[in-house]
């Protein structure tokens, strides 16, 4: 179901020149492993550090770091060794698909392996994305001559900060697009060169297909494995030729994911399942102080001591733990321990107080104060001259991640070594956290790769690995530490709450002339509250500094999750104030954003925008670009009952190019349901410093009987500038529904979750 919008051929030329630039400094490394296996890596080398970067780039000029590996073994199996975690988004399989295509290997012969979590597998691309905005590899020509220097810098930074990261919807568009494809193309060329040499024929006459080399003229045909060792001896290709879209054979197809079979027969090992083959394994239940910064003042474990299976009870200062023969026994005993906590200044923290603080900060910032995020034109003046002025304030709560698999870590500390099994999006940071907890060197920690039962940004923190390592060290056995769902809810790193105020103006033709927004959260990514793609001339976007004494973290799509709701609700209010259809209004303001317009039109068409609906039903539309993908969604809601029911969601996505269209569609469905669950039902509230919610009875989940049907349409609008899949489906969802509710019965929802207005 792909609609391919063609792009100018110059973009593919840019890709080739990127590879050339890349290899000018010998960025490709290759070697042979014992047994004749070829291994090829795409390396980065620190170039000539410019002045101020020099102190940070510690290594020498010859230091090479490889971050995308491919291995061919004697059985003609090709393994993609991927420095990213599989948390459901299918990225590892998709990256392998890209590799296989460049190498002309059939999908059956491909395996995927998580790269070991040691410094050599650093995702320098991820490092670049988050430390050097604007230096994205998929925006070529922006850094040009600085390229090698940045590579070196980010590699060092990445090593320092443990940037083996999965997140930012970046695995496919950076590691895949810029690392793995080049590795695959290089490997293919070296194999061809080896065969050409052996057969005494020109390389140009050799065809590669299905992991075989064939020379038609002489009738020779051999599997790749026959030349693996010889290939390693070949000269490194200066400019491996990566495929143009028209040559893609696997890329752009819904190749079945490699991890799915193990997830239907119970054999897939998640963090909570992983552990040593040891009779000494024991289990721990833990409870940390509910108020941020509090410590355990005293612990009364008199009942717990007498309970079945209990081996040890520990006060670790910041948390209490019970170690037992079984997790359930540990959790039962933990429930009987009476704990007193130290007093802290956070004991009086409440969401009510925080929101009052937000309002005060916004009052003070007014129309011009706060930190400026974008300023162009003169929105104050323009509002004064506007024919229609519109004002609105929106509010969203803190949100929990609620991964299906609660936080957990299995740690084994002995003899100066530590083994860790845990679901994490940052294995090197988790490794360092475990090393600190176990009192060993980071190099003596082995991270065992596992599947993650959901990440969504929650698993970007290392604290639970540190916790388990400390426990294992103190207790003296290998410990499987599992957080209860209650503990997981209480000790999350929450999506920030926010209040956002808007003032907008329309001229007598119903065209938006100004936009003035101030809100309270830090803007990560920085582009989240910005609206440059809309043709609105006078804009001010600011944020105010507020107190949020809560653990905050990246929640799927980060700041786009709240700004998607804020911006697209206010655009809708402007549309209605102008007396215009919300789709027409948006279209009229997208004259300079053809890709955005195409996506908006795609969604409207899918949804039958404008067709009659039953009484009490409504449609709403929303459009958000995030992580380099543009997504428009139309929600269809039924307001005839006593609660809103989202009947259908229509989603049109332009992610540049869908490497695996089924995977992209699945991740759109996923982002929509994840976002709607929160938008419809969820809030995390704090009182007396503590989170009030605990489990799925008070943090409600969307289920099969209230989830909408979802249709997804894909536009391949920019094959050389691919966007993410994991997060972009989420940001438009809440606004699409709120806008649909307004269309159905005139109720404008400005505060989430929606359910609180229909109690």
């Amino acid at each position: 179901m792909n609609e391919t919008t063609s792009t100018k051929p110059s973009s593919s030329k840019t890709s080739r020149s990127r590879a050339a630039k890349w290899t000018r400094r010998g960025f490709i490394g290759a070697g042979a492993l014992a047994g004749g296996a070829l291994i090829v890596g795409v390396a980065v080398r620190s170039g000539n550090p410019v002045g101020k970067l020099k102190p940070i780039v510690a290594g020498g000029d010859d230091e090479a770091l490889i971050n995308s590996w491919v291995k061919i073994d004697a059985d003609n199996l090709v393994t993609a060794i991927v420095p990213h975690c599989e948390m459901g988004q299918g990225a590892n399989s998709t990256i392998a698909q890209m590799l296989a295509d460049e190498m002309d290997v059939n999908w059956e012969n491909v395996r995927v392996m998580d790269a070991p979590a040691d410094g050599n597998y650093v995702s320098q691309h991820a490092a670049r994305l988050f430390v050097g905005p604007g230096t994205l590899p998929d925006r070529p020509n922006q850094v040009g001559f600085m390229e090698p220097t940045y590579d070196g810098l980010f590699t060092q930074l990445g090593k320092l900060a443990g940037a083996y990261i999965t997140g930012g919807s970046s695995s496919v568009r950076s590691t895949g697009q810029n690392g793995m494809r080049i590795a695959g193309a290089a490997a293919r060329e070296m194999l061809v060169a080896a065969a050409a040499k052996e057969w005494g024929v020109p390389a140009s006459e050799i065809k590669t297909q299905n992991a075989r080399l064939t020379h038609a003229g002489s009738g020779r045909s051999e599997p790749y494995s026959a030349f693996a060792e010889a290939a390693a001896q070949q000269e490194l290709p200066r400019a491996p030729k990566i495929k143009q879209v028209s040559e893609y054979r696997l890329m752009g197809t819904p190749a079945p994911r490699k991890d799915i079979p193990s997830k239907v027969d119970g054999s897939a090992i998640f963090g909570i399942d992983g552990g040593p083959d040891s009779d000494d394994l024991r289990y721990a239940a833990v409870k940390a102080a509910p108020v941020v910064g509090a410590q355990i003042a005293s612990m009364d474990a008199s009942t717990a001591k007498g309970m079945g299976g209990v081996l040890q009870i520990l006060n670790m200062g910041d948390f209490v733990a019970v170690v037992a023969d079984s997790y359930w026994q540990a959790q039962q005993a933990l429930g009987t321990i009476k704990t007193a906590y130290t007093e802290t200044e956070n004991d009086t923290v409440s969401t009510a107080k925080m929101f009052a603080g937000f309002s005060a900060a916004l009052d003070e910032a007014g129309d011009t104060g706060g930190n400026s995020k974008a300023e162009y034109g003169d929105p104050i003046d323009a509002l004064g001259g506007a024919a229609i002025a519109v004002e609105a304030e929106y509010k969203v709560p803190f949100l929990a991640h609620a991964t299906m698999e609660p936080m957990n870590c299995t740690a084994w500390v002995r003899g100066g070594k530590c083994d860790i099994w845990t679901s994490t999006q940052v294995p090197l940071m988790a490794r360092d956290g475990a090393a600190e907890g176990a009192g060993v060197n980071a190099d003596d920690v082995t991270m065992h790769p596992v599947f993650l039962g959901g990440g969504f940004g929650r698993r970007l923190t290392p604290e639970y690995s540190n916790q388990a390592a400390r426990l294992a060290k103190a207790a003296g056995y290998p410990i499987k530490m599992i957080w209860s769902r209650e503990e997981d809810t209480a000790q999350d790193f929450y999506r920030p709450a926010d209040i956002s105020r808007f003032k907008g103006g329309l001229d007598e033709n119903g065209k938006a002339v100004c936009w003035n927004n101030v809100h309270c959260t830090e803007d990560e990514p920085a582009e989240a509250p910005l609206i440059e793609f809309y043709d609105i001339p006078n804009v001010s976007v600011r944020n105010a500094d507020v107190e949020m004494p809560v653990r905050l973290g990246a929640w799927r799509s980060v700041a786009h999750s709240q700004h998607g709701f804020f911006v697209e609700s206010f655009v809708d209010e402007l549309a209605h104030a102008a007396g215009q259809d919300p789709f027409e209004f948006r279209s009229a303001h997208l004259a300079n954003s053809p890709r955005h317009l195409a996506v908006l039109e795609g969604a409207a068409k899918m949804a039958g925008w404008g067709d009659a609906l039953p009484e009490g039903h409504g449609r709403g539309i929303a459009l958000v670009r995030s992580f380099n993908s543009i997504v428009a969604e139309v929600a269809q809601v039924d307001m005839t009952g006593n609660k809103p029911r989202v009947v259908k969601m229509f989603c049109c996505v332009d992610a540049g190019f869908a490497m695996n269209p089924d995977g992209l569609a699945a991740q759109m469905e996923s982002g929509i349901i994840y976002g709607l669950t929160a938008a419809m039902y969820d809030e995390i509230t704090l009182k007396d410093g503590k989170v009030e919610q605990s489990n799925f009875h008070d943090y409600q989940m969307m289920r099969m009987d209230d989830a909408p049907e979802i249709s997804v349409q894909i536009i391949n609008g920019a094959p050389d500038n691919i966007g993410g899949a994991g997060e972009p489906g989420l940001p438009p969802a809440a606004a699409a529904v709120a806008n649909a509710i307004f269309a159905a019965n005139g109720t404008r929802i400005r505060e989430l979750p929606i359910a609180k207005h229909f109690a």
Partner: protein
Amino acid sequence: MGSNNLKRIFLYAVIGASALGLTACGASSPDPVEQIIVSEPGQTPPPVLAAIEADPAAAGAADFAACAACHTVESGPGSGVVSGVVSGVGPNLFGVVGRKAGSVDGFAYSDAMRASGLTWDAASLDAFLADPAATVAGTTMTTGAIADADRRSAVIAYLSSLSE
């Protein structure tokens, strides 16, 4: 996942600060403040039954833990329903002994429970907990039976102790 947020994580990792919730100390993590070693591995853990003889209601409280998955025992207003959503939900059992079956306001009992005509006492609770479906055919309490007679009486003793 955002650029600045991750930049913050970078900086904290590089500087070695504890802003991510790790314990306050810089270098190595602190030893336990208190460590109670109840038994070494391989030792027989203390039997649960000893507690039952001493104080049936206290033992019953521990046994009730399995029931707490679906039932609360809260005094005060509200049906105390642990979850209003799916199967596994049970009514608040505070004061259940002496109460007419199916009478907690706001809880969605099965028709069978409402029509059962039972008033809960030790005998009827014992029969119900031994085999819910046999005692009240059509009850939504499909799990939670307590096979062991001593354990049943401990839980009933505990429930009996819960009244205003």
